[in-house]
């Protein structure tokens, strides 16, 4: 087993995102940001505690996974002023991140950004959905695609990367 240095990067990243979520909650009083903070701090904790992977994907796969993880940051702000669309976008974000949070809880110390073979998880939400993390992100990002036409192309790219990561993960788990 190799030394797992990626967990520290994951820990710092997630705690940073968690702090931003808490700040946003303090600013807006929107419960959604508490949900995000819960997810981020849990992920940070699981990263810190995780066990090294039995089998890891190659460097290219790792890089692509990090690119895919960072992609939601490039979505553009809304250009539409249709309140119903903005509401639908917010609701999709909540549903998506709820799925992501539930998946994070189930993955526990098997959590990782780059595909790797760790403990196989089949409990909780994984009983019903094979890749809830990617599905959750896909749903949340669909909301962003609805409120700016340029975001549609970003969503297509992002979803393709999720699909590719899903396949790579499956191959690793089988191998």
């Amino acid at each position, binding site marked *: 087993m190799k030394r797992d240095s990626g967990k520290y990067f994951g820990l710092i990243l997630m705690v940073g995102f968690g702090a931003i979520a808490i700040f946003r909650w303090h600013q807006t009083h*929107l419960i959604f940001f*508490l949900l995000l903070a*819960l997810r981020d701090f849990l992920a940070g904790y699981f990263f810190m505690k995780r066990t090294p992977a039995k089998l890891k994907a190659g460097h290219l796969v790792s890089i692509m996974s990090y690119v895919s993880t960072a992609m939601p940051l490039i979505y553009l702000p809304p250009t539409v002023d249709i*309140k119903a669309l903005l*509401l639908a976008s*917010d609701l999709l974000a*909540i549903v998506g991140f709820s799925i992501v949070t539930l998946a994070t*809880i189930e993955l526990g110390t098997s959590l990782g950004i780059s595909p790797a073979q760790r403990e196989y998880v089949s409990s909780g939400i994984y009983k019903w959905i094979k890749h809830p993390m990617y599905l959750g992100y896909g749903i949340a990002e669909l909301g962003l695609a609805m409120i700016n036409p340029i975001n549609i192309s970003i969503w297509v790219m992002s979803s393709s990367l999720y699909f590719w990561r899903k396949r790579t993960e499956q191959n690793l788990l089988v191998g």
Partner: protein
Amino acid sequence: MKRFMRVITVVLALAALVQTVYVYAVDCNNAEIKKEEQSIKKLLELKELVKEGSESFADIAGENQNEFPIIKDENEFQAALISHMLKYLEAVGGKEAQKKFLEGGQFVTKCAGPGI
């Protein structure tokens, strides 16, 4: 522990959904109030313009009446003003108070006369 975290997540998610819909509803209502406020303000400005210039509504129709269907006379002006005021009252949640006010017979003007 896992079960507890799952419950917390579901509770937060449901609360966030309810709060988002509530904020949206309040936002929509505030926008409606603002819109009606603006309409009433513009109608009163139009009335002032007619008064000051001693012109009729028909004279300034098309020049300064961009926001409304063209108002040609006092009757149309009153109809438009009442319509926006009623919409405003409804948006601020004053429909019941208005009803009580009208039923109580308190709606009597001190200076009765033509116009508003």
